[in-house]
């Protein structure tokens, strides 16, 4: 009999317990909708909304119904850049980052209902939730969504990282070196994430080195998989941060940056 008996009894009991636990922690769709609709009463123009887990479309559906005019963050990767005011909806089984621990961020409102919660965060030091880089003389803006030159192209778009998403810039490097400049205020900090897109990591043909240059120079080691790796760079005396991507003897590398400015 040896191990067989405890193994099987343990497997059956564990399985039944996990079935019960995963069954009992499913968020209720009506509770999600009620929470979003409750926010609709106090939301202000310009407030951003986000939900976790980022894959859960029921949050998106409720937001589309009750808060159609508010910009949505697309999940965890999209929360690396700063915000002014952000409503963050969370399911009990997917808690998000506690922004209140960050300097200059405070919680203005919090509602917890049946395992679901929403917090309204305000970041007092935010200058620009989405930063727009420039390539040579072409600077991206809200209206100008694409720039290109011989070294490559940049485009403000929704970025895809193997099932995770964020807003930011897709960077396609067409030559050995590509340099982008982020223009902010002197002493401001550019924060966000940078890394491979899903497409980029799949089609990478060689090594890459990434360098940030603001008030100081710093390297940025890319992860081996798609997704954004956080960074924080203080601008130089002209208010600039430079991003330099160097491909080691290959072309058409595709990367993503999602960032914003804070004081």
């Amino acid at each position: 009999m040896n191990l067989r008996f405890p193994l099987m009894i343990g497997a059956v009991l564990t399985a039944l317990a996990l079935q019960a636990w995963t069954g009992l922690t499913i968020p209720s769709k009506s509770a999600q909708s009620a929470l979003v609709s409750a926010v609709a009463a106090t939301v202000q123009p310009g407030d951003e909304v986000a939900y976790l887990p980022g894959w859960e479309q029921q949050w998106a559906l409720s937001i589309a119904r009750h808060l159609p005019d508010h910009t949505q963050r697309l999940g965890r990767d999209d929360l690396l850049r700063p915000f002014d005011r952000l409503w963050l909806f969370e399911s009990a089984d997917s808690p998000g980052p506690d922004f209140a621990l960050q300097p200059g961020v405070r919680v203005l409102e919090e509602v917890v209902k049946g395992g679901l919660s929403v917090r309204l965060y305000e970041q007092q030091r935010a200058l620009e939730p989405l930063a727009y880089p420039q390539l040579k003389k072409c600077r991206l803006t809200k209206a100008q969504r694409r720039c290109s030159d011989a070294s490559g192209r940049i485009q403000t778009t929704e970025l895809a990282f193997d099932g995770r998403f964020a807003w930011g810039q897709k960077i396609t490097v067409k030559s050995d070196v590509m340099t982008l400049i982020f223009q902010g205020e002197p002493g401001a900090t550019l924060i966000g994430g940078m890394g491979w897109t899903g497409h980029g990591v799949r089609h990478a043909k060689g090594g890459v080195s990434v360098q940030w240059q603001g008030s100081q120079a710093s390297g940025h080691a890319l992860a081996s998989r798609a997704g954004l790796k956080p960074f924080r760079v203080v601008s130089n005396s002209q208010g600039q941060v430079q991003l330099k991507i160097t491909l080691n003897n290959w072309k058409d590398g595709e990367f993503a940056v999602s960032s914003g400015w804070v004081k």
Partner: protein
Amino acid sequence: MNTFSAANRRVAGVLGLAYMLALLLAQTQTGVTRDEGYYFKAAREYSGWFRVLVQDPKRAFTAKEIDRHWSYNHEHPVLMKVLFAASNGLFHEALGLSSEVTAMRLPGIVMSALGVALTFLLGVGLCGPAVGWLAALFLATSPRYFYHGQMACFDSAVTTMWLAVALAWLYREGHHFRLGVVFGLAIATKHNVLFFPILLLCHWLWIHRERIVGGFRAGRADGADGWVLPSIPWWVFFMGLIGPLVFLLHWPYLWPDPVGRIGWYFGFHLHHEHYPVRYFGQSLWSPPFPRGFPFVMWAITLSLPLVVAMVGGLVEALRRLGSDLWWGHQPTDARTAFMVLNLLIPVVLIASPSVPIFGGTKHWMNALPFGCVLAAQFCLPVILRLANNRRALIAPLIAVIVLPGALSTLRAHPHGIGAYTELVGGLRGAADLGFQRQFWGGASRPLLEKINTEARQGAVIFCDRTNEDTFLAYQRDGLLRSDLRFTLQMGKAHWWFAFHQPDSDWVLSAIRMRRDSSLVAVEDLEGVPMVSLYKRKGS
């Protein structure tokens, strides 16, 4: 091997029938997949040849007529597709007893039910009814077997046919011709069974290992030719001759140029394209794929008791085989080795980094019945100890062991292709870890009603992974309004589907970035989205 009593055969029949009814009922909610759309079309085209055969038999055998009717979807043999056509012709077109989708699916459903019945018989043959029952129920309550069992596809059918060949081989004495025919029908179902002879070769080498190795030793010792090949059994000739003959005869497309067309068929599958798979948050698009893929996928898509018992059963079997090897025993009964090979060979093939892994767990599903039997063997002493000679307790104990699998099956329906079980925290846990839950565009079915109700006359639908053949099948069955139109061009659509899977990430992004799109419905399981429906504002 035990013989099957009349009572055991009746139980197998009842089990199969009950499972067939459950699948028939379940499939009324399960969406039509891309491949089903292709096979429906193939079935209708092949039907045309049979009509010609009745009207003008001589013309039916001309190369022109054969190519006209059999050229479509010639990358797969046609046994199942001909059965789909026959079922559709009888139950839908002639008798009007069922919808087209149900009629087309019926042969696959029957095959899946037969798989459960045969698993019962394999368990009975090896160890008796209790193992048979538990093994059959382990298989029946495997969420992804239940899903594939509903399809007009080949995956559950080839699982059953592989099992049928194994049983025919185990019960081959006096029935070599039957073994050859069953093998032929199996390779006429899907190419997976072409690996069965490799399994038999491995098994033959295992059985004769002492003689083969001893032959080498004798040759070295006395300098003579001591090595003598063990005699080749008769069944090899029956399988080797009748099998290919059945395969050739069943597929008219091969007749005009058998060598060339069979060569193309092998070439196609040797160089099969790869479709992306999301695995631990990474999209795997091309080889090399992780060797652990099939092992991990089974661990997180089969119920925990089945996983534990299967591993236990395998370890126990390997220990027995190791002991035989160590002590030089030559057991006359080599069933343990046969079972282990049936479990491992399909899995090990998929673990090879260059073999296509798309579609979840279906590519090595033919190993599952053997895993279920080994698992049931492992569980049997536990059940007997707990029952403590009270026979009435055996059935409830078996029910408790298979309950987690049944719950996962129920929770994942009708999107069982995306089922995940306890080890990964169920559906939501798998989504958090970045596992794939959709492949072939079937998930859109539950959202058709919304489009039927709300879409304006002649609205254009972008269906993403749901293909046009499926769209048309829904319309023929009245599941989708006939005035609605299919498009592949996003810009022309009034409604958009976006599937949550690697090759549709760009679709989701493209639709979300449109200023005129609005999310209107989500088809999900426990909050995990399968497909989202967007509508053009103001349309």
